[in-house]
């Protein structure tokens, strides 16, 4: 599924929320776990703590850590509209690395990591589910895949 095109890092809170153990071994083997600690030295990260879910906070902390280590080749997946707005506001350098789940699936299809038709089907199903995403995002992602 991931074809080795991305190294997927998962933070502990997201691992718990997503019940990773359900996934097939072939997928789990391609996911690396990472731990987040020592974010107290960054005011912006600490300011977000009361506002965000643990998983969202850890993902942003992880992305920020990559930036601090001058690693610019990464994406962080963040879906909540408020969380995304806050990142744009107080961690603007992270904005360029931010994708939503739908945007990331679209990117995978465009890079041929995922099959185009299957991805369009998957995005369509997500659009009909209770996943919180605007229909405009679904439409734009599908259009982006189809245009390639």
């Amino acid at each position, binding site marked *: 599924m991931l074809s080795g095109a991305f190294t997927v890092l998962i933070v502990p809170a997201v691992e718990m*929320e997503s019940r990773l153990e359900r996934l097939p071994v072939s997928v789990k083997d391609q996911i690396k776990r990472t731990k987040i600690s020592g974010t*107290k*030295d960054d*005011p*912006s990260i*600490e*300011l977000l*703590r*009361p*506002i*965000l*879910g*643990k*998983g*969202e906070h850890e993902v942003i902390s992880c992305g920020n850590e990559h930036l601090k280590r001058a690693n610019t080749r990464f994406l962080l997946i963040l879906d*909540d509209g*408020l*969380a995304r707005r806050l990142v744009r*506001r*107080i961690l603007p350098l992270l904005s360029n690395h931010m994708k939503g789940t739908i945007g990331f699936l679209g990117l995978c299809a465009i890079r041929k990591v995922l099959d185009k038709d299957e991805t369009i089907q998957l995005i369509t199903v997500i659009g009909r589910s209770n996943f*919180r995403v605007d229909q405009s995002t679904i439409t734009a992602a599908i259009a982006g895949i189809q245009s390639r």
Partner: protein
Amino acid sequence: MKQSKLSFEEEEIFRKKLIALLLSGADKPIASKVNFQKELFLLIRAMPNFESLFDFMPHRLGPYSNSAEHVIENNPDLFVADRKGIYLSNEGKQFSSSVSKEMRSENFERLIQSIQFIRSIYDNLTDDEFMFLVYMTYGYTEKSDRFEDLLKRKKQLAESLLRKKIITHQRYEELLKG
């Protein structure tokens, strides 16, 4: 808590400056003493270099700094606490502006950004919403005489925070789980 190497007088000046900057972070008063204490608490959590200046302890209404309360009470020329809330007097505004001019480092910019962020988000909370969010994030419940009541109202408080766009959906779910 980090040990400060400053004298009491020097610390007191720093406390005054920091509180003046916090109060200058928006064009309106901080609505209540509870909100003032909690906004200062969040600022100190974000900027732990200032931790030693404010002795935040668990108190009846959540984390509370006696020294911050004293700064407000002992400097009526700079700070006003009345029915409108807590805010800068005209002299306080001049003081805050002079502090801004004298501090121009990168850290100062981070401090101001943090203050403006806190004021823009948390000024809109009621005392109960603010206490609930701080308790659920940082604890400090030991001496609280409100926590149990707030916990009983967690659905109402969490919904209000979500409606005001203060918290994300994921945080909302976490607050409900308590």
